[in-house]
């Protein structure tokens, strides 16, 4: 809990700095915008957090969002049915998760290689599928999911809150959740104490795929258009959010609430750069530096803990 407290202090400091240096930051419109953006990052990063908790990684989440969104958009516009479109997006997200899981558990491919290959495969298929087209103009009802408000609060924030609670209960109070941590902490020990490691790993990657599919739907509703590059810049910030949120890349330690704080910090940094009129081209550089710093802190924390033992 102490770790989360430090991160909340970081959030407060960034907010204070931006309130002092810009006029726009401390307006309700901007703050709600930050929260909405952080919610979207959280949705992608939440499934990713589970994979990292098991000591793995899912590098395909951004590309999965991209193709799932494009498929959902195509199905929705060609059939006119929101349900079918949403089903296509979610279903495809899950399918990607199934394939990732099979590569990792059946073929024994290291997770970062399996999902990295998946990333480029999905990217290729997305560009081929879209053929340079943009699909836009969805029904007002569907767009509510991304840009609507309930009681003055953007809808994605409700979606985020629902999954934060569900995910929190899932990871903290269910056997499944404990098994996820156990696999990440010591896979062999988990296996020997009867955890069905393969089945759990499969489920974790399926959940990661499903969350990417869900995020794709919300993104689509928010942007009101789908292009082949829709998911391209999403993976690095999502990984950064998980690591900044304190989930260890070595598995077994971390939390979904930490990932939410991480998503918030990442979003605040980007929002601050926008408000301070920093060229958007700096964003990959800044995200890259944040990733490296976060992993470095993770490594140092771990080394210090090992030295104590």
């Amino acid at each position, binding site marked *: 809990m102490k770790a989360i407290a430090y991160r909340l202090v970081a959030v407060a400091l960034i907010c204070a700095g931006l309130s002092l240096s810009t006029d726009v930051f401390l307006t309700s419109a901007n703050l709600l915008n930050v929260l909405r953006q952080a919610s979207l990052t959280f949705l992608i990063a939440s499934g990713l957090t589970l994979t990292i908790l098991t000591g793995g990684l899912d590098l395909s989440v951004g590309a999965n969002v991209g193709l799932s969104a494009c498929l959902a958009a195509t199905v929705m516009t060609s059939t006119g049915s929101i349900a079918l479109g949403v089903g296509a997006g979610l279903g495809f997200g899950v399918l990607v998760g199934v394939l990732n899981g099979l590569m990792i558990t059946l073929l*024994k491919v290291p997770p970062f290689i399996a999902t990295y*290959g998946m990333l480029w*495969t999905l990217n290729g298929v997305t*560009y081929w599928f879209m053929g340079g087209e943009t699909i836009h103009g969805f029904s007002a009802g569907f767009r509510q999911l991304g840009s609507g408000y309930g009681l003055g609060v953007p809808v994605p924030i409700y979606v985020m809150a629902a999954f934060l609670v569900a995910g929190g209960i899932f990871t903290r109070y269910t056997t499944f959740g404990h098994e996820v941590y156990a696999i990440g902490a010591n896979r062999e020990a988990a296996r020997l104490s009867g955890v069905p490691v393969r089945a759990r790993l499969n489920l974790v990657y399926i959940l990661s795929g499903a969350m990417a599919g869900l995020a794709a739907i919300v993104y689509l509703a928010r942007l009101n258009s789908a292009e082949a590059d829709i998911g391209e810049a999403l993976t690095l910030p999502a990984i950064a959010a998980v690591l900044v949120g304190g989930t260890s890349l070595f598995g077994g330690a971390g939390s979904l609430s930490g990932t939410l704080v991480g998503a918030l910090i990442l979003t605040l940094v980007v929002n601050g750069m926008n408000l301070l009129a920093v060229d958007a081209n700096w964003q990959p550089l800044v995200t*890259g530096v944040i990733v490296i710093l976060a992993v470095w802190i993770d490594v140092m924390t771990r080394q210090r803990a090992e030295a104590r033992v």
Partner: protein
Amino acid sequence: MRSVPGAAYLLAILVVVFAIFGSGFATMANVLNIGVQSSVLLLLALPMTLIIMTEGLDLSMGAVLSLAGVVLAWMLMHEHGLPIALAAAAGVGLAFGVANGGLVVGLGLPPFVATLGTLGIAQGLALVITGGQSVTGIGDALPALYESRPAGIPFSMAIAVAAFFVFRFTLSQTRFGSYVSALGGNREALVLAGVRANAYHVSVYALGGAMAGLAALLLTGRMSAGHPTAAIGMEFDAVAAVIVGGTSFERGKGSLGGTLIGVLTIGVLKNGLNVLAIPSSLQVASIGVLVIVALVIDSGLKK
């Protein structure tokens, strides 16, 4: 005699299939074309083999190559002369390689995430320097060099072939080579023998960065311009070539000959699909499938 890598069969099958179904595939001009197209990839895949042999990975290579290409073009545009421009590009690559090595070896960061971070940094720098635009007007010296044919071979192929033999010699005949082979899986023995394992380990990453910098010569020469996203994702092709070539992530075992076959397999696949008029986006996807096929064959052979 070691057994033939599975990729060799894959390559043979692809060549036969494309020769039958793709008109214009089995011509001398097209074979040279495949060689030229594969050159840049080989320059990345050779050091990537060494990095993966040390149980590491360098995801930043494509972005570093793009950045080095932009630097090379920028220097040429400002009329600094080809040798100085190339030195600057190689220097930028080397700096990123040393940084990767420092992060992985010195700080102990997991290689795939550390190099994902430097990927972002290199990509960001390339975008910031150029404002997202291509750098053109690089003069005639580099395009003329690129179009030259030393001993009748296209320049890029000559460079790639030379690099292959230098790497092969270094890996099999020098102390550096045997230490690098031992780094993956036998590191403890090296340290006990008094070898400065960390220095050798960092230099493997440094070599990767420097090669990405040098590859900018071919990339920028081919395009006659520097583009900040020109080689994004090319590290995937390099990783794919290494895996298809049979180098293993876990056993610290690899072969440069296998990687050469892997690079050619990818070159033939892309070229053949091109001849069959399959869009380039699907060619990217096909490499992902190729890697999975290679891994399935590999795990089948192990049993």
